[in-house]
Structure formats: C-alpha cells, structure tokens
C-alpha cells in the first residue's frame, strides 16, 4: 500500500521554537510539496522540490525553509515559530509529468502558543 507519511499528527510548540516537520513517501516520486491549509483560505503551497537537493518557493514561503537530502524525504522547517503559523500542514508527492496527481499525507496539525 503506497503512501505518504508525516512524522507527527499533532504538534504543540512555543513561539520562537525551531520546528521540523518530516514527510516520507514510498512511491519513488520525484516531486514533493508542502502545503498549509487554513479555513477560508484553502490549500496554499509553501515550497516544493522536483529533485533531491532542489527546491522552489511556492506562494507563501516566508518564515519557512525546506530540506531534501534523499528522494523519499522532504522536511519543512519553521526557523522561529510564530502564532500565525498555527495551521494544518500537508505533504504531498507526485511524478514529474503532465497531469501528475498529488497524493497527500495525513497532515500535521501544528499549534504555536
């Protein structure tokens, strides 16, 4: 059963902490994505990666960075967490082709207090 897994389902952190969210996929996908999902705003792309050690900014990269050292693993880093980063974070992966269908992980609900 192929899948995308995320390291935590729920996470509570304090303002100013450094936060790591990890995502692993077992489908040999080249593309990996990090989104955040907020009520009324839908899914917003933070960063994506189309190859190992490659990354591109999405629509809302401010306050975030990413790391992709291995093909199957894509990490999202909040250098200094703030309360406005409280959100649902979703990782997805896909093949690098037209019409590739992103497959999502279960999500991490992050609360920053």
């Amino acid at each position, binding site marked *: 059963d192929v899948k995308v897994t995320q390291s935590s389902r729920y996470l509570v952190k304090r303002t100013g902490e450094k936060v790591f969210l990890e995502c692993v996929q077992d489908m040999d996908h080249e*593309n990996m994505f990090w989104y955040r999902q907020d009520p009324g705003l839908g899914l917003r792309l933070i960063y994506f990666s189309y190859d190992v050690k490659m990354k*591109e900014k999405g629509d809302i990269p401010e306050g975030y960075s990413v790391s992709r050292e291995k093909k199957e693993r894509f990490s999202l880093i909040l250098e200094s967490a703030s309360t406005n980063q409280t959100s649902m974070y979703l990782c997805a992966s896909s093949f690098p*082709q*037209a019409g590739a269908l992103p497959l*999502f992980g279960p999500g991490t609900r992050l609360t920053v207090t």
Partner: protein
Amino acid sequence: QKEVEQDPGPLSVPEGAIVSLNCTYSNSAFQYFMWYRQYSRKGPELLMYTYSSGNKEDGRFTAQVDKSSKYISLFIRDSQPSDSATYLCAMSQGGTSYDKVIFGPGTSLSVIP
C-alpha cells in the same frame, strides 16, 4: 478573481439524495481536473480525475468537465453518511517537470441519515 472558485457550503442533504458539487475557474489552459475528498482532520485523498472535457464515472461518483463554460462538477448518487467530508476540486495545465496544481477552497458536505 481567484483562479478556482468553489462554494464552501456547508451543504446538508438527506441520505440517498443526489449531490452536485461544482467549481468554476478562470484559466482556460487547465487540462487536468481532479476531485479530492477530505475527512475531518485527515489529508485529502484523490477521488477522481479527468483530462480535458467530458464525463467520467466511478461507481456512485461522476465527474463532469465543461471547458467551454470553465465549469466542473462532481455528482454523488445515492449519497451515504460516509460521504460526509470536504470535497476539493483541483486543476492543472499539464506542464513538464512541474505541473502546478491549483486547488479550490473546498465544499463541506454532510449527509444526514
């Protein structure tokens, strides 16, 4: 104007009803159209996808694309309480190495027993 618009609902129907979920979009270059289902506190799961115009049926679900009107629909026949979820439409142009997928904000559906 947002690229993809979707009535957020909530939509409440009795069990057994036919449900129609819709999205409109502004970018005529979109070629791939997807529907995701997202249960509460879970990641989105791919439900159906179509290429270009036309209909596609899968069990109780039918996806319909009208490119001339820039309008897509998902029909659910004989709706069940287990269909209660948020439904996200998504679409992309069909690029090469990275095909950016644009998501609608989602429609919340409740099927009442």
